[in-house]
């Protein structure tokens, strides 16, 4: 599974990657670009070496905390139009509690740790870096 992609995310591929006969609960999270203040799309950029290192560390943490759980994720980069997914996470565990917990853990850690930046593109042609207030 490529964790960083410039193509549309396939949730089916993520689900297939975590599926297994001993895992009866699967949780999938999808983050999509939403229309906010005339936003037409978001351009995502990345520090790829560090993002991949962080993803590998997060997945190792999941394996340690929830040993029977399998988790994978994909983050899409480049220009993503409104309505399409920028992030997808799939977690499968023997039972649903661990699947939900692991999935939640990964999205919260992604928000805190992944070196990825978004620039909002608006219908009037303007652009704005998210989280930066001087521009």
């Amino acid at each position, binding site marked *: 599974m490529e964790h960083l992609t410039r193509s549309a995310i396939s949730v089916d591929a993520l689900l297939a990657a975590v599926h297994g006969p001993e895992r009866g609960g699967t949780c999938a999270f999808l983050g999509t670009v939403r229309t906010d203040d005339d936003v037409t799309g978001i351009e*995502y*950029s990345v520090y790829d070496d*560090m993002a991949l290192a*962080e993803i590998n560390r997060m997945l190792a943490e999941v394996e340690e905390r929830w040993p029977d759980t399998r988790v994978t994720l994909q983050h899409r980069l480049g220009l993503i139009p409104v309505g399409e997914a920028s992030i997808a996470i799939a977690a499968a565990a023997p039972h649903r509690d661990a699947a939900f917990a692991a999935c939640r853990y990964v999205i919260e850690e*992604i*928000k805190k740790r992944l*070196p990825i*930046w978004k620039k909002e593109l608006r219908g009037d042609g303007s652009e704005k*870096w*998210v989280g930066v207030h001087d521009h």
Partner: protein
Amino acid sequence: MAQVTVRFFARYAELTGCDSTDVLVTGNSATVGDVLERVRETVPGARDLPARPLAALNLRQVKLDARVSDGDEVALLPPLSGG
């Protein structure tokens, strides 16, 4: 003396007009903060970087007092907004 590669991303790459630069820091106990000061002195546009930006050293987030060594890679990271 340590040569450190500094990488800029997103808004910070726009401010500095470049993706990376190499800086030299002196002494045995140079820190990421010292590297940042050298960048401010040598890279046009870097004066507009925030006083205490988020930083990474060799692919891990660190505080500005983290020590650097020759050949290290420091990255200055705008507020993260993945997901």
